[in-house]
């Protein structure tokens, strides 16, 4: 006799109580605490895979691949800033903290982004020399915790991102568990070593959009109106949040869908709060258009961007650029098969590992352990990231040219159809083969 259940005839797994659910109930009963993990939402939600692009045909003509130019450059932050950010590609690197990531990983993100002419972003732990030194364009986040915040780093940043929300946890703060608090991380955050470092969910010195406008004004004064100020929001009520960000004076709005990654968040938060980026972009674009600010205040979207197809579809829905986090970490080497045996020792496997908060990442990326960190080669990681970004840009251009566009941002909703009714309703493009957009076209809104 064995205790292991043997699936077979007559053994029907419950759709509601599947093996993962049962495992989690048993774990909770044993440990008495919710699950905290990294990565992003793992449940299936309507996404860019549920959209298709309509290539050119008789009614419109395509551009020649590898021959006719297809521009990918984008300018971010030219509403008020004297020195807007000029990107060569419409894909940026999202904010990830030193603390969540090793210094070597932060350096690699800078190297990779700089090689292809795009920006990277600090995170909830301040700015390190490694990332400033290797990032030609660095966005400095102003978060509720203000860990490491100082005016010198504000002045040497290329843009400031006021973080209000993160797609993985709209309305939630952060937590860096004690095991990742090295001497250096502790010093940068002005806290003792080894204790859990909580990041609050609200900013300490402003509440509401009227205050935010004044706060942005202060940041502009400190930086002499040189650099753009982004406002990052989690996708939950994007129409109103985008409008309020614009009203508050943002140069750029960064919109992070529920699929967006995190270093450490409760699983219940990751999977159950916020809306998919697919459904958030049209609302955000509507908001900008209603204010007459579409393309004047740029929209950067994130949350589950993996391929050039995702990029092309996000741009077609009206975004000016996208941002990647989880995908960038995977490009660096996270979840790589060469670490399979070590992932197994941690009770996981290559392709499944999401305990980024524990600091035991065998790839040396989501860790502060010096020995693990040394395994990660920042130069090689940077090259991999640059390769990945280049490949995604080529994919995006391929799709844009097929739709007859000489600039990736000329892609438009008219180039899209949806595979499912849900995606059609959310993205507000017709179901493939029909003219039907659920909720529009005279249907109940």
């Amino acid at each position, binding site marked *: 006799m064995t205790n292991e259940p043997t699936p077979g005839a007559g053994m029907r797994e419950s759709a509601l109580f599947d093996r993962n659910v049962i495992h989690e109930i048993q774990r909770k009963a044993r440990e008495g605490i919710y699950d905290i993990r990294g990565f992003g939402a793992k449940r299936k939600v309507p996404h860019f895979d549920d959209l298709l692009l309509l290539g050119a045909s008789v009614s419109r003509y395509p551009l020649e691949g590898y021959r006719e130019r297809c521009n990918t450059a984008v300018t971010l932050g030219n509403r008020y800033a004297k020195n807007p950010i000029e990107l060569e590609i419409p894909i940026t690197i999202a904010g990830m903290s030193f603390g969540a990531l090793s210094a070597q990983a932060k350096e690699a993100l800078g190297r990779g982004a700089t090689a292809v002419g795009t920006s990277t972003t600090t995170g909830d732990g301040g700015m390190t020399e490694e990332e400033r030194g290797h990032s030609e364009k660095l966005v400095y986040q102003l978060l509720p915790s*203000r860990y490491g915040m*100082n*005016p010198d780093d504000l002045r040497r940043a290329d843009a400031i991102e006021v973080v209000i929300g993160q797609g993985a946890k709209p309305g939630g703060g952060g*937590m860096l568990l004690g095991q990742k608090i090295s001497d250096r991380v502790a010093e940068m955050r002005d806290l003792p070593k080894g204790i859990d470092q909580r990041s609050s969910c609200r900013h300490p*010195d402003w509440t509401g959009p009227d205050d935010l406008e004044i706060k942005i*004004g*202060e940041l502009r004064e400190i930086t002499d109106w040189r650099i753009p100020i982004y406002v990052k929001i989690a996708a939950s009520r994007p129409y109103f949040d985008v409008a309020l960000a614009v009203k508050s004076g943002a140069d750029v709005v960064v919109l992070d869908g529920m699929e967006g990654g995190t270093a450490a968040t409760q699983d219940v938060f990751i999977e159950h709060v916020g809306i998919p980026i697919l459904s958030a972009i049209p609302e955000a674009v509507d908001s900008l258009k209603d204010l007459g600010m579409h393309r004047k205040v740029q929209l950067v979207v994130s949350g589950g961007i993996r391929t050039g197809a995702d990029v092309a579809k996000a741009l077609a829905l009206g975004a000016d650029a996208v941002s990647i986090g989880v995908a960038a970490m995977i490009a660096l080497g996270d979840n790589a098969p060469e670490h399979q045996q070590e992932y197994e020792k941690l009770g996981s496997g290559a392709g499944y590992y999401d305990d980024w908060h524990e600091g035991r990442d065998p790839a040396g990326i989501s860790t502060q352990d010096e020995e693990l960190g040394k395994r990660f080669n920042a130069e090689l990681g940077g090259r991999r990231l640059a390769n990945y970004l280049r490949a995604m840009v080529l994919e995006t251009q391929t799709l844009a040219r097929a739709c007859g566009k000489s600039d990736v941002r000329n892609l438009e909703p008219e180039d899209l159809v949806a595979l499912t009714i849900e995606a059609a309703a959310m993205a507000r493009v017709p179901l493939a083969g029909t003219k039907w957009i659920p909720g529009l076209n005279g249907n109940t809104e």
Partner: protein
Amino acid sequence: MGTAEQTVEVVDLTETTIRELNQRLHDATDGGPQNWRITHPNGLHAIGAGINAPLEIDIDGHVGYYCAGMNKEANVRIHGSAGVGLAENIMSGTVIVDGDTSQSAGATGRGGLVVVRGNAAARCGISMKGVNIVVEGNVGHLSGFMAQKGALVVCGDAGEALGDSIYETHIYVRGSVTELGADCIEKDLKEFHTAELSGLLAEAGVDANPSDFKRYGSARKLYNFSIDNADAY
């Protein structure tokens, strides 16, 4: 006396914009004007935000949000009251307010000294990271929330949830405390703390007896998550 007055740069904010003022303050170097008097502030925001030099600044009147925000090295005296976020994220130097301040005074400050002669509203010293704050009057609720480093001295009374989720900041209160926040407890006033308090009172120009104060700090029970403490959250 006459010579000193001639070297004071006077800026009237009914004639000069905040942008022009702050640019001049940012451009001030050793060779430029070091003594400044700002008149008619009229509650304007971000006056003196981002100063990065040892300037001596007097402001005649009330200021709005974020006065002397992220200050480095300058000594700023406000002859009036201050709005939200006075000297937020101050790095060094001193900021003194003759009147009262609105909420979040000295928020996230990492160094320097903030002195409030009157009362400070809610969240005074929220997330403070090394700044010292001396309030001659009372402080509002949630003062010292998640305070990490530095000292908060309250010569009057403190409102609800004082020092909620506090880390390593030392809080000294002479008057009453309506209620302590999560993980904040009264602690012994040891020799080190009496000396620290005496020094801060002297630096702030406050005549008070350190032995009249009680000290509050972290019980350190919430430093690492434990399910047994879940009812504290």
